[in-house]
């Protein structure tokens, strides 16, 4: 396992309505806010929005690429949803090392859309090992 990188490799995803349908099927979260254009048009968002948990999957993906099994087995995440993500958006997940202890690395993660808006911010913690 490598030591904690200063910067995580960015993870980029283009969001589509088809992806939201797949996520709803896989997760069981079939809230019409994510799936039904007609219903979503009546909400303050005006159109369907991505599942928040889908965006957190991107955070976890970035951490998994950096820390592998240790993230899968002992990771921690505290996330805040800042703005909606719509089909057609492209979101980029980046991470910056905030601090380390002897055994843990703490990161500030940002999921940002193509307009530079932070849609999710998260603090994550992953175990690190010294050899």
């Amino acid at each position: 396992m490598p030591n904690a990188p200063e910067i995580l490799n960015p993870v980029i995803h283009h969001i589509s309505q088809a992806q939201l349908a797949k996520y709803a099927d896989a997760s069981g979260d079939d809230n019409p806010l994510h799936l039904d254009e007609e219903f979503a048009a009546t909400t303050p968002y005006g159109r369907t929005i991505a599942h928040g948990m889908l965006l957190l999957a991107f955070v976890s993906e970035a951490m998994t690429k950096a820390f592998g099994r240790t993230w899968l087995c002992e990771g921690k995440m505290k996330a805040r949803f800042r703005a909606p993500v719509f089909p057609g958006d492209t979101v980029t997940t980046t991470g910056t090392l905030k601090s380390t202890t002897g055994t843990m690395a703490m990161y500030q993660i940002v999921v940002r859309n193509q307009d530079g808006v932070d849609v999710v911010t998260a603090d994550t913690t992953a175990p690190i090992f010294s050899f």
Partner: protein
Amino acid sequence: MNLATLEPGQPLFNLKMVVTADKVRAYLVAVEDDDQIYGEEKLAPPMAVVALVMGMAIRAVNLPAGAVHTGQELEFVAPVRLGSELECGATVSHNSVRGGTRFLVLQITGAIDNQPAMLGRVSIAITGEKEK
């Protein structure tokens, strides 16, 4: 379920679910994660486990259309192997209405053989609610 009657500490469900390779595969396709580590280690992505438990919680509470997640805290305590039987649970942690919006916080858990594998806390906002 009437959201207004939910009390802090109230358990919502305790159910068992097998984390099958098919469920995990469908999840990985949906989130477009092609990392080989899951297949090599025969592990479920922790967020897949969270998603499956959250799906149960959403159905148990019967969240109204338009409910949105506002925050999430997660701790992955132990790996979840493909084929594991996961003991899933959710408990009400907070339930209040302010300014016409209901703020609901649920504690969610996933355990294997009575040992925790995932702990979580999810914050949900539901607009159009009346204060008591």
